[in-house]
């Protein structure tokens, strides 16, 4: 027996079928449009990176979760686990007018635990500002993130904002020394508040001190907090300027998993999705590690989570209506002219040729969710009524495969 090509995908890999691919494209293009309208320029970083870049950028724990292979000279390469480091490396390469505002869209790759259900490859859309240190740049990044969510049709969301630098000094002031500090931050990063409190107690912080740390490190509405970290008032003022302070809360317990964050950090949560849909923050240290000391701040949204949120919040993506033109034998050139003229008018037209009955053309049209079906025969052109269109037909018909039964080639 001839060997068969396996139809399975490697762990964590997913094909996006038409419905999913459409939703991804919708989100991606809505967000790209916002970025463009804010004057950000698009860059497309390379997918394959040197391992050293990943270890120095996102850090060792992320580096351990990258797909690795070797080049011809035996150097170890990684599929990029984030976009910020490659974009920062690009800007560090020089030739940019500062401040630089850039955006990107592309897949990132991270190996996840067995059966976690998380894909190992997913699309991220994000933006970065290089060369501005002020709180307003952080606020602009948050505002741009909010605008992108709104453009994708997300209404119910909340952004938790913290500041890793301030959280670190809060812990130092509470009496956590070097070793305990690393352990405490690691516990916070896992969001394990119980272990965090144990570390603090072991390091000699009093019970009252631990209780006050607990209060300082939980999310609170912005109007209930006066000055959680240096620069917050400025940031809040800027957020008010963008009119988005209502979408924000302060959470000093946020310590992101990328090791390069130094200042303001934030995470995006929305109704209908249990995980963060993205986040970002200030990473002034990364550019100096790339040899060009420079302040920088940015964010990324994970498109699959945004899509999930969109669906959960009842925002549906509709494709432009489809016209199906089917030409039976002997009518191809006549139909070809019709199709070309419809397309020139801006319609979305799918053209099929082959022996086809009115019933088959109608079924194919239904399966494709076509808004109109035209059957072209040597005798002329006829519009086939498809009847009441089911709102949910979309691509489910495609999955069931009736299109294949229509006998069209």
């Amino acid at each position: 027996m001839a060997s068969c090509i396996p139809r399975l995908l490697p762990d964590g890999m997913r094909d996006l079928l038409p419905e999913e691919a459409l939703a991804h494209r919708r989100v991606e293009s809505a967000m790209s449009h916002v970025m463009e309208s804010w004057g950000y320029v698009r860059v497309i970083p390379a997918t394959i990176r040197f391992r050293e870049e990943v270890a120095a950028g996102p850090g060792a724990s992320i580096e351990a979760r990258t797909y690795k292979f070797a080049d011809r000279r035996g150097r170890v390469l990684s599929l990029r686990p984030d976009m910020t480091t490659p974009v920062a490396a690009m800007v560090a390469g020089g030739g940019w007018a500062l401040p630089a505002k850039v955006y990107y869209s592309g897949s990132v790759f991270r190996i996840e635990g067995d059966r976690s259900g998380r894909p190992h490859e997913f699309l991220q859309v994000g933006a970065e500002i290089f060369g501005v240190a002020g709180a307003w740049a952080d606020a602009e990044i948050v505002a741009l993130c909010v605008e992108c969510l709104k453009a994708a049709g997300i209404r119910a969301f909340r952004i938790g904002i913290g500041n890793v630098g301030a959280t670190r000094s809060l812990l130092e002031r509470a009496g956590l020394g070097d070793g305990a500090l690393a352990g405490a931050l690691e516990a916070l990063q896992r969001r394990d508040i119980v272990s965090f409190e144990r570390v603090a107690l072991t390091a000699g912080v009093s019970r009252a001190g631990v209780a006050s740390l607990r209060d300082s490190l939980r999310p609170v509405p912005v109007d209930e907090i006066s000055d959680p970290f240096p620069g917050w008032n400025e940031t809040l003022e800027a957020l008010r300027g963008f009119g988005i302070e209502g979408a924000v809360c302060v959470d000093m317990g946020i310590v992101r998993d990328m090791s390069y964050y130094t200042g303001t950090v934030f995470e995006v949560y929305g109704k209908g999705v249990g995980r963060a849909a993205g986040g970002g923050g200030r990473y002034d240290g990364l550019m100096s590690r790339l040899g060009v000391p420079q302040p920088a701040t940015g964010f990324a949204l994970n498109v699959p989570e945004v899509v999930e949120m969109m669906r959960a919040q009842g925002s549906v993506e509709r494709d432009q209506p489809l016209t199906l033109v089917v030409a039976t034998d002997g009518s191809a050139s006549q139909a070809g002219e019709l199709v070309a003229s419809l397309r020139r008018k801006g319609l979305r037209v799918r053209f099929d040729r082959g022996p086809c009955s009115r019933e088959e053309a109608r079924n194919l049209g239904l399966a494709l969710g076509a808004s109109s079906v035209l059957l072209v025969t040597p005798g002329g052109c006829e519009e086939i009524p498809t009847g009441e269109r089911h709102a949910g037909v979309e691509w489910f018909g495609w999955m069931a495969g009736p299109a294949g039964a229509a006998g069209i080639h």
Partner: protein
Amino acid sequence: MDEMTIALPKGRLLEPSLEILRKAGIWEGEVAVVDGLVLERDGMRIIVIRDDDIATYVASGAADMGIVGKDILLEQQKDVVEIGDLGVGVCRLVVAAPEGFRNPSRPVLRVASKYVLLAEEFLLRKGCPFQVIKVHGSTELAPSMGLADAIVDLVQTGRTLERNGLVEIEEILRSSARLIVNPASYTMKQESIALLASSITAAAAAVGPAGVTRDPGEGRL
């Protein structure tokens, strides 16, 4: 108050968990121990599911909050916010073997456990060759049946070990029931979560077994 779903584990933690919720004024009345039970009142839902599934429900957002043992949290490594130690369901994860056990009795030590990850992490640090055999229950039978040389399992009183001719060799960690929250709920429903969490932990402090000292070094060894 936002709508809220709380996941409680079937088994030994159910009764103490319910007692805490009653004392906290969150839930009154009895709960029949039926797998998958859903109770609903005033926007508050209580579901009773297997302890192994609590973190999965909470991590995905299918439940906003849950109560589960630290042993399971460490074994499963889910993305949840662990906000409180409820001090009930105290137990220890230990390595145990038949009396008179000598290591190494074989070239490769065979260890049966439900806690594959924790057993592996512990044995890796010991530096001896080993093989962990996953079992789903009645771990204590494995040595006498010849399935394994030793086991890694939870002990509460130690009587189960004794009955099966096993002795504790080393403690891996101590566990107790933890209150966990979905990360998105933690931010999206912060006000309700903060209210519930403080009344639950306060009630737990009142319910918790007297004289149980909370070792500050507890957790991962």
